[in-house]
C-alpha cells in the first residue's frame, strides 16, 4: 500500500483532536471542518473542539477489512452521534461485540489506525470505546 505522508500530516489534527468548526453566524457546528456553513452559507467559521463523548447510532462488525487494517480484525465500525449532535464514522475499540448496542454511551480515545508495513509511518487517530466505568 503506497503511503502519502503529506496527506496524513494534513489530517493529523483532525484525527487527533476531533476539531470541527462552528458558524459565527448561525451557531451550527460541523465535523469535519468546513470553510462554508452548509446551513446559512456564512464563511465566518471558528474552530470548535468536540467534547469526544457520544453514543452509538449504528454499528457493524468488520471481518474482512481493507488492506492495512487486518491487524485488529475483527473490529466494530460505527456511526457515533456526538454529544453535540454531529455524526462521525469511527472504529470501536476495547469492546466486547456481544455487549454493543445502539444508544450505548462511548468516549473517544487515540489509537493506531493503521501502519504502512514494518517500515512506513504509523497513523494514529480517534476511535471510540464504551465509557470507562469509574471505581
Amino acid at each position, binding site marked *: 500500500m503506497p503511503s502519502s505522508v503529506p496527506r496524513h500530516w494534513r489530517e*493529523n*489534527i483532525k484525527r*487527533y*483532536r476531533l476539531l470541527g468548526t462552528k458558524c459565527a453566524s448561525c451557531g451550527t457546528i460541523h465535523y469535519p471542518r468546513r470553510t462554508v456553513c452548509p446551513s446559512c452559507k456564512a464563511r465566518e467559521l471558528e474552530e470548535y473542539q468536540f467534547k469526544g463523548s457520544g453514543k452509538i447510532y449504528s454499528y457493524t462488525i468488520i471481518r474482512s477489512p481493507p488492506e492495512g487494517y487486518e*491487524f*485488529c480484525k475483527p473490529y466494530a465500525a460505527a456511526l457515533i452521534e456526538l454529544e453535540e449532535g454531529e455524526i462521525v464514522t469511527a*472504529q470501536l*475499540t*476495547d469492546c*466486547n461485540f456481544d455487549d454493543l448496542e445502539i444508544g450505548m454511551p462511548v468516549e473517544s*480515545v*487515540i*489509537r*493506531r*489506525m493503521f501502519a504502512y508495513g514494518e517500515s512506513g509511518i*504509523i497513523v*494514529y487517530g480517534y*476511535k471510540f470505546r464504551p465509557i*470507562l*466505568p*469509574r*471505581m
Partner: protein
Amino acid sequence: MKTIKDVGIVGYGAYVPMYRIKNSDIARVWGNDPVRVPVKEKSVPGPDEDACTIACEAAKNSLLRAGIDPHSLGAVWVGTESKPYAVKPTATIVAEVIGATPAINAADWEFACKAGTEALQGAFGYVGSGMAPYALAIGVDTAQGQPADALEYTAAAGGAGFIVGPAEESLAHYEGSYSFVTDTPDFWRRQHEHYPKHASRFTGTPAYFYHVTNATRRMCDELGKEPNDYDYVIFHQPNTKFPMAAAKMLGVDKEKVIPGLISPYIGNTYAGSSLVGLAAVFDVASPGESVLCVSYGSGAGSDVFSFTVTEKITEVRDKAPNLKSYVGRRLEIDYATYARYRGKIRM
C-alpha cells in the same frame, strides 16, 4: 537535590490497557509450574495500542487534573523503552494530541525502567529553574518479553504522566530528589533486536537492590529523614518480591508499600512501573501525608523523590479516572491471542 523555585506536581494521570493474561497460562504453555509464578496476571496492550497511545491517555488524564491550558506546558517528555518508532519522537505526537504544540520542547527519554522518572527529574529541574511554568513527564511501556523467558511473566503495558508546576498550585509538594547511577549491565536490548536480554540473578543484589537502597538512603540523609518516616513508599516493581525485599532492607513497614504496589495485578510496566504506583498512591493519599517514590532502571540507576500531599488533592482527584478503574477493567485473553496481539508470531 532541590530546585531553585518551589515546585510540585499539579496534575497526574495513569492508563492501563484492558487485556490480561494469567501467569498460570504462560506457565502452562511453557511447561512450568503454574503456581510458582512472579505475579498473578499482567496487562497486555490491545492490537491498536502502543506506548504512544498509552502516553496520550495518561497525558489527557494529567491535564484534566491540572486544569491548565496545554499551551502553557513548556515540555512534553516521554520516557520509554518501547518507542513505536526507532527514530521519530513519540513526544511530538503526544504534544500534538493534547494541543500543546508548537511552542514546546518535546523529546523521548531512555533509561530502561527509569526513563519516566528520568523525565520527571528533568521536569522538576526545568520548572524549578524557571525555564517553563509547567512540564509534563510520562513514563510508559509496552514491555517486550521473549517467549519462554522468565521476564515474559511480568513484561506488561501501562504508564502514568505527571505535570510539574508551581508549588502553590500543586497537589503534591516536591521536597527533594536524588539520582544514583553506575554502569551495571544487568538488562539490555541491542539495536534491531525484538527482545531484551538479562543477566538473571545478577539483576538483584548488584543491580536493583544496590541502586534502590543507596539512592533512597542518600536522599533521606540529605533531607534528614528515614525511609520509614514516610506514609507511603513506592518502589520500582518488576515483580512482587523485589519491592517488598527493598522495603525490608530499608526498614520500611510493609503496609506503607502495599497501596502503591500494583505489579501483582498488572505486571511490570517498566518505565511506567514506579510512576503507576505513584498515581495509585495519589488516588488514596490525604493532605499532609508524605510519599517516597523510588524507581530503578537497568543499566543501571535509581531516581528518588520526596513529596508531601497538599489540600489540592481532594479537589482534583476525581477529575480523571483513578488507577483502580483501569485495573478493574479487565478482559482475560489466552496465550494464542496474547501472542498475536504482541506480534510474537512472525510469518
